[in-house]
């Protein structure tokens, strides 16, 4: 099934009365360090049927804004300003009066669907309770309506599923239930706080579609809070960019992406990897860190990271000003930027910022596509298999099935090369990585590291040389670093494990810090006192300590903010070039993978369904799953995002415990749906073997239908 999302008709913003008006909203929390000014004066109007996206990095105050509108802030928070809903000010209302409005005039969709539903009630009960709070309905009538709502948000077999409990649903299905709860009483305003952050891209596309449909159905205005500029480009009518607790730019979606005017917006867009941008453009990291919102100094909070700041920026915080033909921008130099006489990225970076280094690294990234460094084979995986028993029962565990997490996976990786393993959660990509890192004998198949078969060598070698050759950088840098160890000890630990003496450890730690661009002074700090980007650099430095040949990168960027991501991407590229490392990257974000990978392997249900050079995969994907995956990733460009052809997948990845006999993708395959009976029979009964694409021997895919 393919469909194209058209650009929404521009609604004339003049005569309609706003569904929601927010005026000078201010929110502060007490904290150990002082009062946190999380939101410092936010204004906007939301018209019925329109979508306002609030976009910002973590800590910018966007979630606090959402909670402030709903009146769901913790009691210690202080809320000021006005939240006008249908002419009534919600600020200062007591809980009983607010509860009459919540759920009936304003509904909310939360970030984490796994914890948002009460585990002890069936979803039908949750929905009919939500209906009966505001409407005088019999239990039976409410249940009927609940079933209809479940049907509306696309839950299959809603009549039977209504009696199921939340834990019996997948994450995507739970998020549909949360949306059903939010629209149960047809509110005039919907607030969605990062509704798809916890979900896979193909599911994200479905959920955003449900949200759009729910909005159409109810005619509600939608406040969509996200950090993903691609989602913004695809769904917003208006965009507000939030930084340090304020809107720094507010404009129509077309205007904002066409000419980002606040330097922060411009730099943010330049730092986002783009999955479909043709050739790779170099990423330019912003440099520096967002300010903490305690005792914020006067002046523009972005000034210290801004390339075009003036002396005046340090004194006065600019207000949002109207810029003709664009929107509202909070920048002293907005008019210069808007009329094109000033490049917001600037030519001379401010003193003391690592932006210059970042740009040099970026230039290297642009180059590396041409430098084909192909060394010896560092990692060879042949027919790797990993299964887990599925057990039932608490006291006496009995085995009821087998989960085929990794099924006959083969690939090889050379020094200086990057292979990206991509796929949705549950596709087996992380299990593959962990099997390699475990350095044990595989269940079936072979793993060869730098020419040594891992399964046959004595354990002394395994724990000695092999351990040094393979290292890992983990997803969440805060979780991967022991919070009770200072940086020096963190970096010394792998060296101590291989028995280095004290002097050489000291020297090596110093070397490592320099290598990843960290200052010597961080070596006494604990991870909690470092910024996100610094922590990930420590994580990388630690992985490099034993001079490995192969670095496994498990979602190395997904925990980082966009403005910090670019710097780490560039660092990884430089390290690979200088040290001749082989990278095995596991990631779900294809746009990031495109920036760092030479080759890509797409995994689905434990199988590699397509593999090939990065550009070949992106420019000419063969397997229907790859195509769907690529088209599900939102592009940060409204024109392209709304006009491109999309392959929307039905349903969700099934459990690897019930593996189909034929092609693993058959349940969701769009080609299968349109295939003739003979092909359908083959798809159902034969597992497809990898076949090379026409004229490209290294580009292989496993599909009967092409």
């Amino acid at each position: 099934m393919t469909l194209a999302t058209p650009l929404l008709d521009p609604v004339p913003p003049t005569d309609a009365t706003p569904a929601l008006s927010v005026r000078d909203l201010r929110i502060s929390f007490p904290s150990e360090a002082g009062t946190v000014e999380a939101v410092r004066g936010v204004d906007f109007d939301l018209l019925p049927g329109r979508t306002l996206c609030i976009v910002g990095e973590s800590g910018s105050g966007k979630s606090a804004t959402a909670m402030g509108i709903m009146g769901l802030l913790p009691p210690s928070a202080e809320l000021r300003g006005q939240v006008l809903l249908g002419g009534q000010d919600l600020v200062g209302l007591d809980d009983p009066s607010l509860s009459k409005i919540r759920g009936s005039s304003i509904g909310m969709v939360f970030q984490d669907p796994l914890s948002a539903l009460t585990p002890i009630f069936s979803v039908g009960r949750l929905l009919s309770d939500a209906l009966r709070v505001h409407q005088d309905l019999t239990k039976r009538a409410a249940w009927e309506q609940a079933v209809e709502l479940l049907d509306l948000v696309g839950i299959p077999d809603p009549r039977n599923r209504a009696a199921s409990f939340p834990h019996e649903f997948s994450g995507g299905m739970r998020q549909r239930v949360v949306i059903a709860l939010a629209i149960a009483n047809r509110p005039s305003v919907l607030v969605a706080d990062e509704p798809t952050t916890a979900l896979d891209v193909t599911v994200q596309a479905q959920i955003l579609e449900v949200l759009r449909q729910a909005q159409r159905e109810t005619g509600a205005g939608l406040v969509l809070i996200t950090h993903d500029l691609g989602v913004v480009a695809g769904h917003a009518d208006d965009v507000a960019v939030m930084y340090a607790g304020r809107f720094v730019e507010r404009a129509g979606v077309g205007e904002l992406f066409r000419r980002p005017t606040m330097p922060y917006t411009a730099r943010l867009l330049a730092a986002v990897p783009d999955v479909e941008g043709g050739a790779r453009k170099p990423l330019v990291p912003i440099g520096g860190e967002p300010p903490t919102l305690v005792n914020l100094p006067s002046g523009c909070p972005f000034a210290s990271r801004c390339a075009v700041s003036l002396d005046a920026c340090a004194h006065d915080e600019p207000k949002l000003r109207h810029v003709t033909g664009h929107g509202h921008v909070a920048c002293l130099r907005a008019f210069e930027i808007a009329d094109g006489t000033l490049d917001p990225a600037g030519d001379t970076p401010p003193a003391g910022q690592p932006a210059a280094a970042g740009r040099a690294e970026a230039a290297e990234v642009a180059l590396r596509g041409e430098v084909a460094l192909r060394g010896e084979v560092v990692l060879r995986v042949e027919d790797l298999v990993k299964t887990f028993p599925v057990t039932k029962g608490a006291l006496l565990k009995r085995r009821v099935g087998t989960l085929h997490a990794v099924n006959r996976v083969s690939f090889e990786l050379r020094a200086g090369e990057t292979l990206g393993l991509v796929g949705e959660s549950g596709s087996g990509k992380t299990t593959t990585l962990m099997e390699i890192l475990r350095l044990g004998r595989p269940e079936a198949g072979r793993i060869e590291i730098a020419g040594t078969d891992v399964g046959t060598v004595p354990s002394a070698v395994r724990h000695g040389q092999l351990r040094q050759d393979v290292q890992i950088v983990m997803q969440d840098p805060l979780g991967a670093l022991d919070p009770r160890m200072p940086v020096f000890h963190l970096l010394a630990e792998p060296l101590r494990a291989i028995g280095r003496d004290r002097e050489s450890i000291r020297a090596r730690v110093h070397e490592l810090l320099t290598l990843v661009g960290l200052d010597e002074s961080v070596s006494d700090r604990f991870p909690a006192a470092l910024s996100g980007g610094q922590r990930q650099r420590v994580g990388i430095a630690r992985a490099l300590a034993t001079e490995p040949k192969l670095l496994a990168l498990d979602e190395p960027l997904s925990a980082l903010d966009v403005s910090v991501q670019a710097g780490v991407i560039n660092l990884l590229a430089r390290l690979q070039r200088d040290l001749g490392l082989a990278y095995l990257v596991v990631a779900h974000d294809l746009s990031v993978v495109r920036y760092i990978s030479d080759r890509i392997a797409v995994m689905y249900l434990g199988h590699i369904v397509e593999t090939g050079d990065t550009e070949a995969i992106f420019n000419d994907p063969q397997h229907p799953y790859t195509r769907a995956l690529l088209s599900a990733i939102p592009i940060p460009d409204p024109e392209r995002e709304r006009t491109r052809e999309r392959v929307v997948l039905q349903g969700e990845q099934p459990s690897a415990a019930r593996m189909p006999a034929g092609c693993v993708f058959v349940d969701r395959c769009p080609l299968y749906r349109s295939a003739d009976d003979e092909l359908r029979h083959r798809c159902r009964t034969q597992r497809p073997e990898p076949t090379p694409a026409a004229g490209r021997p290294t580009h292989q895919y496993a599909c009967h239908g092409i």
Partner: protein
Amino acid sequence: MTTNASTNAPANASAEPVPRAAGSTRKRTSLGLGRLYLRRFLRNRLAVVGVVIFALLVLFAALGSRFTSRTYTDADFTALTQQPSARHWFGTNQGGNDIYACAVHGLQRSLTIAVSVSVLTIVVAAIIGSGAAYFGGRVERVTLAVIHFLLIVPSFLILALVSHRLAGDWRVLIVVLTVFGWMSTARVIWSVSTSLRERDYVKAAEFMGVGPLRIILRHIIPNLGSLLIVNLTLGVVATVLSETALSFLGFGVQTPDVSLGTMLADGAGTVTSAPWLFAFPAGLVVLLTVSMTFIGDGLRDALDPTSVTGSAGGRR
């Protein structure tokens, strides 16, 4: 009382508990962290009161005997069952023993037992609990089965049974109380350790080739830190209570030795006729346990970075 792991997310998302600027020079952060804990602890007024009471009790146990010439074994036959007076500050019992001297000695005995048992219990429980969690598999299942079994067997009865024969000597009592007292703490440590075992930094250490013993000692046990310290203080309370119960029933410390528990037992029969025999040891026991609880509460709030009390401006 489980640790309060809840947190108000928006406040924490935007403000990190450790101020970023504090770590700009060498050694500042570690010092800063210690000072932060101290500041959070001192903010809890009851915890400070607890420290003061506990310090006074320790002083009393250590130096109290200097202010009297009598020992707890001396009998003053001229003053049997006397009310508190200038001569006998806490009065005397039926045998003419000076209650003040007895109380000093009893407190000393009870404190020694409580602190030793609590420390030993924590050590045993930490090793068994975190070891079971880290190794998992069969080791974990067997350990848990043993713990559950011992928790279900009325361990107090077994305690009484064993100490009836062996006790009398307070050192034996320490061993017995430890042997039958580590299970519930071990279970708590185990359940927290299972979540630590899944932490990325533990996995990272494994992938770096760090050995299991070192992982337990360097990564798991230090990160149990606040839990261990809090359980140490609560362990003192629990030990005082079970020592008192055992001695009260005649299974703990035996005459001629004296503990707070035996004093309670001796005073129990004359609550109405000679209340001071009961009141002084009872008061000391309660002061001891309450002060330890206050300290434990304060430590938990101070060491647990997610505690609501610590960040939201204090409750008491």
